[in-house]
């Protein structure tokens, strides 16, 4: 029972209360156009190529058993990903860290040893551990096991989920979960499908069930201009979320197209919308729509006042 982990970020501040460590798992059922962690989409290890670090030395090509690295005479370096088996030989050989394998399986005990190192920070700030991704509930048993171990050590836990899983997965995790960070990416199911590859029925149904169980939930809503930022979306969201009694806060996450280099590194087509970030005034307008129906804090992080809407 292992969890494929893309990254472990220490001292994070925006994935739940207090100072936290966030574990990013690999694998996700959705394909959001604006995804800012594309290296987490696949549950398998991903070869990342940071081309700005490459000096064309050829050590990777020499090490690769599949001849997947192509270095041309003009110094350019490309990867034939169809040949690549992600064995890691090239990353091991690369002196400069231009090649990197993203994704390593951890069992819960091993993760616990890493996460517990920062317990002093959690204790001092009311923080804890957040498992995010990707979609943690693809590994519900292992994550549930990890959370149980963390609780035994007095560490608070948060689950950051897209919600598009069978509810049984929640059952495995909830007994040791203090907070669920739950993504709502749109109210219109067809538009949701166009934006994420899946409809939203299961997601909304699971949220209702969590609410009925009284699970503390912080709803997180990415705000992506032209995709899910229409007034009607937020009015509908307000209507829907008002029926969920255990929501503690709603947080708007303004879109930023900062992850393009990650798509390039992972060899994935860049799907990020070419739109500017929403500004503070726009976010406030949308927050107001939510606040009309909701009696919990509706928050958004500081954004530039002069950003475009």
């Amino acid at each position: 029972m292992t969890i494929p982990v893309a990254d472990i970020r220490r001292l994070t501040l925006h994935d739940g209360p207090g100072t936290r460590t966030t574990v990013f798992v690999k694998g996700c059922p959705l394909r959001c156009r604006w995804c800012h962690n594309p290296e987490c989409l696949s549950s398998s290890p991903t070869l990342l190529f940071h081309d700005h670090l490459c000096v064309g030395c050829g050590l990777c090509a020499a090490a690769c058993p599949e001849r997947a690295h192509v270095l041309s005479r003009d110094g350019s370096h490309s990867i034939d990903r169809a040949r690549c088996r992600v064995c890691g030989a090239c990353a091991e050989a690369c002196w400069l860290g231009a090649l990197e394998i993203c994704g390593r399986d951890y069992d819960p005990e091993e993760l616990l040893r890493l996460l517990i190192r920062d317990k002093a920070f959690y204790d001092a700030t009311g923080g804890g551990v957040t498992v995010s991704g990707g979609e943690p509930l693809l590994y519900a048993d292992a994550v549930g096991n990890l959370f149980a171990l963390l609780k035994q050590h007095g560490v608070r836990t948060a689950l950051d989920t897209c919600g598009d899983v069978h509810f049984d997965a929640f059952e495995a995790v909830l007994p040791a979960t203090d907070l669920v960070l739950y993504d709502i990416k749109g109210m219109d199911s067809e538009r949701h499908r166009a934006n994420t590859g899946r409809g939203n029925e299961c997601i909304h149904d699971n949220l209702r069930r969590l609410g009925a169980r009284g699970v503390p939930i912080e709803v997180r809503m990415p705000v992506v201009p032209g995709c899910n930022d229409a007034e009607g979306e937020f009015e509908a969201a307000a209507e829907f979320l008002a029926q969920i009694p255990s929501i503690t806060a709603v947080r708007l996450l303004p879109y930023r197209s900062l992850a393009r280099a990650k798509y390039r590194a992972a060899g994935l087509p860049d799907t990020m919308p070419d739109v500017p970030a929403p500004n503070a005034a726009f976010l406030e307008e949308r927050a107001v729509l939510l606040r009309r129906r909701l009696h919990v804090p509706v928050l958004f992080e500081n954004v530039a006042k002069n950003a475009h809407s």
Partner: protein
Amino acid sequence: MRLDQIESSFDEAVFVDGLPIDEVNAGIRRVYDEGERSGAPFPVTRAKMLAYALANAWLAVNRDDAFAGIVERHYLDSRYGAGEIARIQSERCGAIAERDFPEENRRTCAAWAEGRFFTQCDRSHTSPDWDRILTLGIPGLLAEAEARYAANPTPFTESAAIACHAFRDFALRFAAVCDREGRQDLATELSSLAARPPETLHEALQLAILYWHVQEIEGEWVRSWGIFDRQYLQFLERDIAAGHLTEEGAEELLVSFFAFFHAESKGRDAGAPFCFGGYLPGDGMRDGCNRLTRLAWRAFRTLGTPSPKFSIRVNPDTPHELLRFAAECIQEGKNAMVFANEPLVREAMLRRGKNPADLANFIPIGCYEPAIMGKELSCTMQCVFNLAKPVEDFFADGAAAPETWDETEARYFATLERDLRDALAIAREWEIAWRDINPSPILSATMAECMGRGLDVSQFGTKYATSGVVCAGLATAVDSLLALRTVVFDRRMLSFDDFRAVLRADWEGHEDLRQFALRRTPKWGGGNADADALGQRICDTAADIIEHAPSAKPGGFQMGLWSIDWCLHMGSKMGATPDGRRAGAPVSKNSGASFGCDGEGPAGVVESLSHLDHARFPDGAVFDVMLPRRTIEGEVGVEFLAGFIRAFFAKGGQFVHFNSLSPDKLREAQRNPAKYRNLQVRLCGWNVRFVDLDRAHQNWVIAEAEGSGK
């Protein structure tokens, strides 16, 4: 009065009393020569030099000054090094070293010329007993000195009596100047202070300013202003109870006081900390934060200058609101502060045999070196040692190539031990030389044990006497050794001799290998178990040697883990090192990671530091936390900073302070200094205006800022 007006009141002061600088210096020299010719004991001569300087230094007072205290010191005292007193100190240092330990002195000069270590007669890291100064006042100190002299006329008691007389006469002289310049209010106050202890907050602060001048003109920097909120609370309470002062009025007074202190140097002299909080004396372990703490911190925030610098003794009972307030100041770029882990420092002091009853008076001396106020001669920079230098010796001409990693490690530790023992042996000579170079009558007169024993502070008359051994460059040492292991022994990428050639060429033509060394080898502060274990072993080895080395002082040598900006000099004298560092670049700063090598951010450095027993660093250990701006913004940032301090201390850290700087903004400040006149940075254990730094220091700060952001 606006800050720039207060600053210019010092810069443009019209001195109205005293002799021209050259005449004062000539007079000091006359007093000294006469003493030497007549065979007078040097402590007595020293006191007479002080008396002459105080009687003749230029003084000024302006119409709007909140305190009397503008003294032309730049050509007088040791802080600025240009005056006759400083020259005489230097001459005596040279002459006594040549007389008593010439070979050792040449060795230390040679060692420092190659960035290895230096030892010195550290004259500037001891705190007076502020409690006694404020309780006894000038007449109390004078009466005690006179009584001791009458009962036991020795050179020391005579020198103390002369110095205290000079202190009183200085106050009266300043009173006369104030009277003449139409400042009868200050004249009356100064006359009162010459006759009795202070009774009001204003009087107490005025006395502190006078004493500050007197001690620094004598020749020792005032390296702490004591535990401010405890020492001055009685005066505040009394003023408020009597209706002389409101809290608002007290806050304004503190702004003026701190501004006055700031204006004298504007942060250009490393400053001296004002200490706050911490457990009160007695058995109850009650934290001492009080209303004066809050008023002083509000004044600090209002002022927003690089000096004064504040330090907080943090314990589990420290009010969270104070840490939050400090965090808000840091958010605003007013970060002239350091936080001390009080329980840890107490543990370190107990292990060194200090009396538990004295621990309530521990203060950071200078930057972050713990000592007992008024009871400890704590030469915290008696020796400065570069832990990274022994790595370079592998690559010296004629040095045989080590054949295994075990041999490499063994040779590093053997060189470390050899150099450290050599440095400590020379440092011991300086300990003995102190009494012939730097008798300190006025400083000694504030210390009860010195007066009781009839011994000057330089004769170790204090209750405790210790010598600090500052160990720097830990991360460079660890990273270099492990890079050597990775490249030569683990991955066999190069032979040792080839690697030596690469380093000799300062990585020229081998940038790819340099990047490998920077990015792919284990780092101190990078969450690597091997690096953490090696760092621990280096520190334990150094501490073992230091703690047991023969010392002339009863308290012996004690280890510190910090560098301040000595790491620039050390690096400037070193060639390229296997960790990817280029020749001449600084070695790592304080106890932290090499810039840009904290692969897991501050949590990784904390993790590395948590492997060290910080109670083995009674001479201090500090972590410089450089944080991206976004991390400290808003309410989340406030709680993060406050929590970081608590968490770092829970993990066993000793001192911590913070910077949040944008490299782009710093570069812009280099280009347009006038526009960024007030941009301050926490350089080491002190703050400076960035534009006041020389180019090398500015570039160093930029490199540190660029290394953050993870």
